[in-house]
């Protein structure tokens, strides 16, 4: 199996630790005056998202994780889970609710998401950084109030709850940042 030795360590490499895939999210090189170098890595578990600290010394190595990532298209959701399709090969993939996690909040027909596969098994889903969704319910807009500092709750077509400015109406299409769930801007009026 391929592996990374300490001289290959850097942010972004994917490694296998205790039988699970990890992403190196930080790497510090430390060296005492006349002593041996220590490589301090922060590793993020690609399945659970948990971050662990590990130390390595010159010459140590970690197994590389067979991780690949590509873009697939959302098809539908049913009792067996979430279904996606590769846009070119039409190969279909089924992911559980746990694997899809928070990304489920932003899935609608034909949404393209990045799926991470580990040893050919899908493990996580990353939605696009921003999605455009239609507002399906919110209290009527306050007349003449175009200020963005007055906020109100809204529900969008994917079922997610967000906070929008007071001037947004049902039927408006809005852009949302999927990492924070924050409203970005209005795309079109309903």
């Amino acid at each position, binding site marked *: 199996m391929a592996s990374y030795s300490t001289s290959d360590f850097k942010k972004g490499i994917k490694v296998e630790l205790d039988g699970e895939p990890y992403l190196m999210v930080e790497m510090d090189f430390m060296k*005492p005056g006349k002593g041996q170098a220590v490589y301090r890595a922060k590793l993020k578990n690609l399945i659970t998202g948990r971050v662990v600290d590990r130390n390595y010394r010159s010459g140590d190595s970690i197994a590389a994780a067979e991780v690949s990532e590509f873009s697939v298209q959302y098809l539908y959701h049913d009792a067996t889970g979430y279904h996606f399709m590769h846009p070119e090969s039409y190969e279909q993939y089924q992911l559980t609710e746990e694997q899809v996690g928070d990304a489920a909040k932003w899935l609608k027909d034909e949404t393209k998401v990045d799926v991470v596969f580990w040893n050919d098994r899908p493990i996580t889903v990353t939605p696009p950084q921003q999605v455009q969704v239609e507002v399906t319910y919110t209290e009527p807009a306050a007349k003449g109030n175009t200020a963005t500092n007055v906020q109100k709750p809204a529900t969008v077509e994917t079922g997610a709850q967000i906070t929008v400015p007071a001037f947004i109406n049902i039927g408006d299409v809005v852009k949302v940042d999927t990492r924070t769930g924050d409203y970005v801007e209005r795309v079109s009026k309903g």
Partner: protein
Amino acid sequence: MPPEGASIETLRARAALVARTREFFAAREVLEVETPLIGHGLVVEAHLEPIPCAVRGAGADSLPRHLLTSPEGPMKRLLARGSGPIYQLAPAFRDGERGARHTPEFTILEWYRPGFDHHALMAEVEALVRALMPERTPEAFERRTYRDLFRDAAGIDPFDTSVAAIAAACARLGVPLPPDFAASTLDDALDLLLVGALEPTLGRERPLFLVDYPASQAALARVREEPDGTRVGERFELYIDGVELANGYHELGDPAEQRRRLEEANAARVASGRPPLPIAESLVAALEAGLPPCAGVALGFDRLVMVATGHDTIDAVRAFPPE
């Protein structure tokens, strides 16, 4: 995107620090010297990796050449030739060292003081650092022994401990153990504890000299025997805000002992699967000819600029990062 490397403003501050450093040594009648950066024989250290280089016309031999990891060898040869006190501000090269405070090509300020011991030299290091950044160093520097630090901060006596006891201290202090830690040498285990848990706390209240290392970490320092029989390397390091700035020795003058330590460093390299390096025979010869009793120190000039200008990466104080 911030520009790669130091801002022009930082480079001006850096140049001012260089100028003040030269004034400091001129006022004390320490001679500025320049010595070769390329050499064949090396002051071999177990954990320093020189950068090999191919040189045509350096000599008729086919011996390998390296960019030196520090100017220590040539400067001691000058001392043996009767130079008196000398200093040098020069590039140094160390392969494989890259991080927030490391870069393979960096600037070293190294100086030697005949007639000084390591305590007299610490006083001069303190005078220089305080002259260069008075606002950052209002108080006198602290001196603390390696033994006291480990006893107080980690609950172990570094002169009488075991890898198992160090592993337990690492666990208490939240330092993850690297693979195969149980097979570590005692010094490698102490080093992990030092960089993992202790160093970040050093020199926070005021700058700190860590002094009197275990004899096995003396490198090229003299070793003295304490009344209780422990053997102590007369070596010091300076820390400010958790950053290691300088390493100094009451210099070893015995050529046979010098050769033994260089060979020991090579043996440690071989034991960890790395090739031995050519030993600086010219340095051993200089010691045989007679090195005056002296103390010497190497200060990481880039790190000093980091501390003086409030930057936390070495790239922020050098014109360009390494290509």
